[in-house]
């Protein structure tokens, strides 16, 4: 706030509104954190009051009942290999589609763009059937499903970005004797870094937080699924449930905060061009 900018009443009103909106959005998260530190009786009686004393039994219970280390490893593996596969496959596909000017490439690209409007719920039932037939109903099995489900958006975003990479760079590489794959991975792919970062972050958040696909295919084993056990038909363990929410969200929040500057930059530079 060093430089004394003129603060018009409109700007101040806008700032106050934005701060109010930010508080409204952060409040539920703080509410969960607050209640994760209280015994169940206190949560039911005084859900808003701050914890009377440090109470960590909820976290111990959530940690053991979720089998947190194993579950975290499962979610981590799915997210890393899911996002990695999407980035590799979609960047190659989008590059080739953007550089090829044939009717077929147009049809294929349109198919990817069209798939953007299909919600997951529409393909949910056939996916479960296919998963059973192909023996993909496991933690490892859902990774290739994410490759397919994430491809439309990633291809769409890469396709728009590849157009901004000058062809001359590849021609220069070809003259120096680089093969197609060499020139893609050493020349083009590094230039796609901003959009790669954006897609990586968006897809990491999506896969980490995804509930429906693991629920219908594997039913247990990822962080989002293991939280369910604290909401029974007759029993609600709000304390451990809140603790499990904090435990599952913490890694991806740290990841998001660490890469925040790329998110804003990448979305601003990449997605709009489409």
């Amino acid at each position, binding site marked *: 706030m060093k430089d004394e900018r003129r603060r018009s009443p409109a700007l101040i009103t806008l700032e106050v509104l934005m701060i109010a909106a930010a508080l409204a959005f952060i409040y539920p998260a703080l509410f969960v954190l607050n209640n994760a530190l209280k015994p169940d009786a206190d949560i039911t009686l005084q859900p808003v009051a701050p914890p009377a004393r440090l109470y960590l039994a909820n976290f111990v219970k959530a940690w053991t009942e979720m089998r947190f280390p194993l579950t975290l490893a499962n979610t981590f593996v799915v997210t890393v290999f899911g996002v990695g596969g999407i980035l590799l496959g979609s960047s190659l596909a989008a590059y080739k589609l953007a550089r090829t000017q044939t009717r077929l490439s147009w049809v294929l690209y349109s198919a990817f763009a069209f798939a953007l409007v*299909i919600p997951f719920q529409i393909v*949910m039932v056939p996916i479960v059937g296919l998963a059973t037939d192909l023996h993909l109903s496991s933690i490892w099995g859902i990774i290739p499903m994410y490759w397919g489900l994430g491809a439309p958006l990633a291809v769409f975003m890469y396709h728009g970005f590849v157009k901004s990479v000058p062809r001359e760079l590849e021609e220069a590489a070809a003259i120096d004797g680089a093969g197609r794959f060499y020139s893609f991975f050493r020349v083009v792919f590094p230039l796609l870094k901003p959009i790669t970062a954006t897609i990586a972050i968006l897809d990491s958040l999506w896969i980490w937080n995804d509930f429906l696909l693991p629920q219908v295919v594997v039913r247990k084993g990822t962080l989002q699924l293991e939280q369910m056990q604290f909401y029974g038909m007759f029993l609600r363990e709000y304390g451990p449930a809140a603790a499990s929410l904090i435990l599952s969200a913490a890694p991806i929040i740290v990841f998001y905060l660490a890469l925040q500057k790329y998110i804003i930059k990448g979305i601003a530079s990449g997605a709009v061009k489409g």
Partner: protein
Amino acid sequence: VGTVPLVMDIFFDAFAKRLAGLATAKAILLFLAIVLITGTQLTVMKRREVQQ
């Protein structure tokens, strides 16, 4: 049941009631609705673009 969104209705049919056929039929209807809405929107947007 009166306030269940279509996608949740599909989920309940497919995985709670085990009526995969009914669920996929509803999914097709949802798909057609989306295609119709997206198609209309795209046509309208394109027409407006030309006028400007």
